[in-house]
């Protein structure tokens, strides 16, 4: 009895396999345009193996055997390619790689593939996967996709996923012949901020080439116009938030690069032209740490922070002991000597690592962005840099205000002779202060390695900006550096959309020159007796 019942299902399974094999076959020879239809046909079989085959194609793991044009899913093994038969999903031995040709995809194919694969993921037990699948499908929604979504919406238990599906369906409903359905859809889309919704509704409110409204029904048009206005409002608010964030992030980079200089230049009065190269050393330390721990990229960046501090700090102390200490009180000579040091450091790096930029990988937790809503997202790497700047700033403030070293540093900066007569070893304090400022520059290098190119010229890009921030903020004032850097960043980013990147930079520089003319001692000038020193 059971045997008899099973028979038809076996027969239909064989049939399904046959259709699947037929659908798969043309993939070996199809052009990119033909492949679009082939993959749609493969998905339409709803065969259990369709999803693994399509995702293998997406990842470039679907190959044809040159000898007989048979298609295999392959994985790279130690001896050539390990083959998997796409029909049975069973291992089919291994073979040398040069007997196979990869079935190539292009951007449009990959986009279509993601949409088709998402169709299979709609029934995944994980709500996150389903949500991702729905938003993937909305990117490439066609009639088949709408059908799949309609079936799914009733079964969907998770409210977020259901709401996403309903948005997609409402978008599709805007094309419905029944005005009532269209109105319901327009109302349904009221709270959406998605650009797709915006574009679609904006189109509805406009007039066609013949002068008639694209949407004949007044009520639907009114609802659409209201939503468009709503989205416009929110967009301009979020646009402002975004610009502010961009400004703060540019500002935090400036602060990070300048804060070490605020100590060496601001507190000690040494014009250190090699400051940029100390930043560069920090960035190269990150690269070396990644080479040393290739399987832990994320951890390597964290480890690189203290390492960069040590490396740059040590080099800083060497510069101070070897060059700067002979030149205290002679700023012009210090400037020239440290400029020479900067050239030497650049050349050393060029000789060790070559003149080419080095690839520093971004750990997974720093890539991508945090999608707050459809109109606003914040990139993680920038967010981390802002937080990192805050931490470095706080630590530095505590070191200077609360520790014995900080006390001595401030004492020496205020009155060297008096500090010396009180038993402070000023030479030792000078070296450590310089080392601290240099170490912080190295730490800045770790952050910059995630944002820009790591090459021998990295430091040169930041040295001018660093001096600018320190002078603008007011020499010898950490708070001045913080506020100076942040305001320069925000001003730059506010100007950029109107003036363009090149002009914005020029405008900021001109404004800065005018400002320094009015207030030569910067935003937060030193007051009282310290100012005379």
């Amino acid at each position, binding site marked *: 009895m059971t045997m008899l019942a099973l028979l038809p299902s076996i027969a239909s399974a064989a049939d399904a396999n046959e259709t699947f094999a037929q659908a798969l076959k043309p993939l070996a020879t199809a052009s990119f345009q033909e492949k679009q239809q082939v993959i749609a046909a493969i998905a339409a079989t709803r065969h259990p193996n369709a999803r693994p085959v399509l995702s293998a194609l997406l990842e470039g793991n679907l190959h044809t055997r040159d000898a007989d044009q048979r298609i295999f899913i392959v994985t790279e093994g130690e001896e050539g390619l390990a083959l998997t038969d796409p029909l049975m999903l069973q291992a089919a031995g291994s073979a040398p790689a040069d007997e196979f040709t990869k079935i190539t995809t292009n*951007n449009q194919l990959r986009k279509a593939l993601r949409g088709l694969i998402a169709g299979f993921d709609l029934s995944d037990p994980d709500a996150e996967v389903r949500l991702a699948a729905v938003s993937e499908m909305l990117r490439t929604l066609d009639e088949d996709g709408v059908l799949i979504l309609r079936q799914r919406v009733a079964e969907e238990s998770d409210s977020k996923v259901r709401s996403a599906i309903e948005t997609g369906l409402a978008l599709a409903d805007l094309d419905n012949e029944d005005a009532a359905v269209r109105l319901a859809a327009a109302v349904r889309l009221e709270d959406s901020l998605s650009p797709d919704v915006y574009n679609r509704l904006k189109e509805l409110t406009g007039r066609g080439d013949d002068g008639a409204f694209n949407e004949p029904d007044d009520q639907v048009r009114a609802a659409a116009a209201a939503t468009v206005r709503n989205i416009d409002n929110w967009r301009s608010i979020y646009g402002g938030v975004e610009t502010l964030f*961009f400004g703060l992030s*540019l500002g935090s980079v400036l602060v990070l690069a300048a804060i070490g200089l605020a100590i060496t230049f601001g507190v000690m009065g040494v014009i250190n032209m090699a400051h940029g190269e100390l930043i560069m050393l920090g960035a190269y330390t990150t690269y070396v740490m990644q080479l040393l721990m290739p399987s832990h990229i994320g951890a390597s960046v964290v480890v690189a922070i203290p390492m960069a501090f040590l490396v740059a700090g040590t080099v800083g102390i060497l510069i101070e002991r070897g060059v700067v200490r002979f030149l205290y009180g002679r700023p012009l000579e210090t400037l020239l000597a440290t400029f020479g040091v900067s050239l030497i450091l650049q050349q050393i790096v060029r000789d060790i690592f070559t003149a080419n930029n080095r690839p520093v990988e*971004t750990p997974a937790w720093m890539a*991508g962005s945090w999608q707050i809503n459809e109109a606003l997202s914040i990139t993680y790497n920038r967010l981390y840099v802002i937080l990192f700047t805050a931490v470095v700033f706080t630590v530095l403030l505590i070191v200077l205000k609360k520790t014995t070293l900080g006390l001595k540093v401030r004492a020496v900066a205020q009155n060297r002779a008096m500090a010396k007569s009180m038993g402070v070893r000023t030479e030792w304090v000078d070296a450590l202060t310089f080392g601290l400022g240099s170490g912080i520059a190295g730490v800045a290098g770790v952050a910059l390695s995630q*944002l820009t190119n790591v090459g021998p010229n990295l430091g040169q890009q930041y040295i001018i900006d660093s001096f600018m921030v320190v002078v603008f903020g007011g020499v010898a004032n950490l708070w001045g550096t913080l506020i100076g850097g942040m305001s320069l960043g925000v001003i730059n980013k506010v100007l950029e959309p109107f003036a363009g990147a*090149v002009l914005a930079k020029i405008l900021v520089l001109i404004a800065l020159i005018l400002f320094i003319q009015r207030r030569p001692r910067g935003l937060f000038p030193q007051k009282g007796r310290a100012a005379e020193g």
Partner: protein
Amino acid sequence: MNNRRRVRGLAGLAAAISFIAASAAQAADTIKVGVLHSLSGTMAISETTLKDTVLMMIEQQNKKGGVLGKKLEAVVVDPASNWPLFAEKAEQLLVKDKVAVVFGCWTSVSRKSVLPVFEKNNGLLFYPVQYEGEESSKNVFYTGAAPNQQAIPAVDYLMKDIGVKRWVLAGTDYVYPRTTNKILEAYLKAKGVKQEDILINYTPFGHSDWQSIVADIKKFGSAGKKTAVVSTINGDANVPFYKELGNQKISAEDIPVVAFSVGEEELSGIDTKPLVGHLAAWNYFESISTPVNKSFIKEWHAYTKNPKRVTNDPMEAHVIGFNMWVKAVEKAKTIDVAKVTDAMIGIEVPNMTGGTAKMLANHHLTKPVFIGEIRADGQFDVVWKTEGLVPGDAWSDYLPGSKDIEADWVTLKCGNYNTKTKKCSGQNYE
């Protein structure tokens, strides 16, 4: 001074004794080939490769017995990425070393700086890099792509195959991107693209803070029409640009970026993850599998003793240029510049992608155009190519000023001939 001369004389004597007279005479009778590429400074990364390419070609030619029975001798100078120094070194090559031909330059500004030197001294320059066009000198052969052999076909591909309706033209602020974008803008408008669908953006050299620009591109691209970025962004600024695109979740599937300055060499040594799927337009890719290309890559690895050294488009241009020069010299049976220049026109040599490069009367080549998608390993998958070969056009047909200008060194004997006024205005590079 006297002493030194005497020493040199002695050395010469010693040489004469140790070698037989015939071979010494032959050694003095070589054909000198100048190599004018920066070996230090910012351009060294790209140009050193080209110097090595020319040296390899000379070595191979000498193994085949040289040219006209004489060995070739390379004279390598280093203009150090310094534009005025290019002119000085060119003068040295032509006047002091009396080279028969020079292979050199990368940036347009270095070419502009040596042009007067080559014309004054009647030298011969092979320039191997894709450039903005609007030039044709009697003394220069342009073996790289003109805009109609790279930029225009790339835009055609995006428009016809991908259905792009909105365009971002992003570039670094200097002559090549500005001219190319001017041509592209005129071309797009001629194809019916409206002004509001074109966004043009320039950034300084080495720009690293791309947040606002990428956010602008994202906004521009979310207007419901398919959008693409045509990038003439130069060198270093590219990595932070692509990184920011990745971080703001703009994938090549939504807004593809097609670049004209990103090739195998630029991709080796950077983290290519954020670039995968984006496009580049060139006339050659290392991944194109033809027997000529395979054996060239093999020879290159053997010559550089580095199996990981990549090949790229300007290298192919130099190889084609070198082979053409050898053929022309053999045809003219002399190294006299005027005769070689005449013999060059119409010369055909195989390119490395299975076609034939032909030197045209305007001193530009016929080339195939390929669009490649960047792979994770820093190589390209070719996704599109032109049907046949595209003849290089020196003066763009899409700029109002250069539409009526023609370059023809055979019938018109002019690089800047106005077909309306019927006048040859000589060399006018603006």
